[in-house]
């Protein structure tokens, strides 16, 4: 059993990270904590993809050595096992950019929500919205008076 876990322990780590992120998105009430949970979720996916490109046995980063692309180089001399898989790296470069973009827009939206409701707790925002919908003075304004 221990051997079975250790053979693919990287996937176990990603599952745990992803579930931490999912729980933060579902169970937490603070919107900033939800956003951090989304970031943890994205990080676990990025790690999963990067780990798909790993090759054991002396593979290095996918930048060709000079002996592999110089003028005296013959094409079939490049050994595929010498370099890591470049495709997951490329895809995750795109995914990192998208995650930065979503985080930026979400933070800007959170600033707007805080300006409007004076809180970032989800249940308080829902209570205020419920009061507004039933034409009552919101609870926060009432407590100030």
């Amino acid at each position, binding site marked *: 059993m221990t051997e079975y876990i250790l053979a693919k322990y990287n996937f176990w780590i990603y599952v745990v990270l992803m579930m931490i992120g999912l729980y933060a998105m579902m169970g937490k009430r603070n919107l900033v904590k939800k956003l951090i949970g989304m970031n943890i979720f994205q990080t676990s996916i990025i790690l999963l993809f990067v780990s798909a490109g790993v090759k054991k046995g002396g593979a290095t980063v996918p930048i060709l050595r000079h002996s592999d692309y110089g003028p005296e180089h013959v094409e079939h001399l490049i050994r595929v096992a010498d370099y890591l*898989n*470049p495709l997951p790296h490329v895809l995750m470069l795109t995914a990192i950019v998208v995650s930065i973009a979503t985080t930026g*827009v979400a933070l800007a939206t959170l600033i707007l929500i805080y300006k409007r409701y004076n809180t970032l707790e989800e249940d308080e925002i829902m209570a205020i919205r419920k009061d507004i919908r039933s034409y009552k003075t919101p609870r926060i304004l009432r407590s100030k008076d």
Partner: protein
Amino acid sequence: MRKWFKPISLATVILTGMLLIYGIHDMPSWGDPNSPANRHISPRYITEATRKTATPNIVSAVLGDYRSYDTLGESAVIFTASISCLFLLRRIRRQGNHDD
């Protein structure tokens, strides 16, 4: 309802995690050079990218040449995000000026 929210979400998370762990069984072992992800198209990239694009860095050759439309869409995403951030944050400043 509020009281049961956290236990329900915890149960959902544990269930999903168990499903994912069940799926680990089918994944290739870590660092296997013959895993499907390492066999499909990446040998072509590694052997041909430098000859076709004259770039020793295979990642940038794939990013900027083989998948340049992907990169174009990515820059569209950044552009959209920055524009929406600009509009969202500009509205705040204008509201602040009205309050003053």
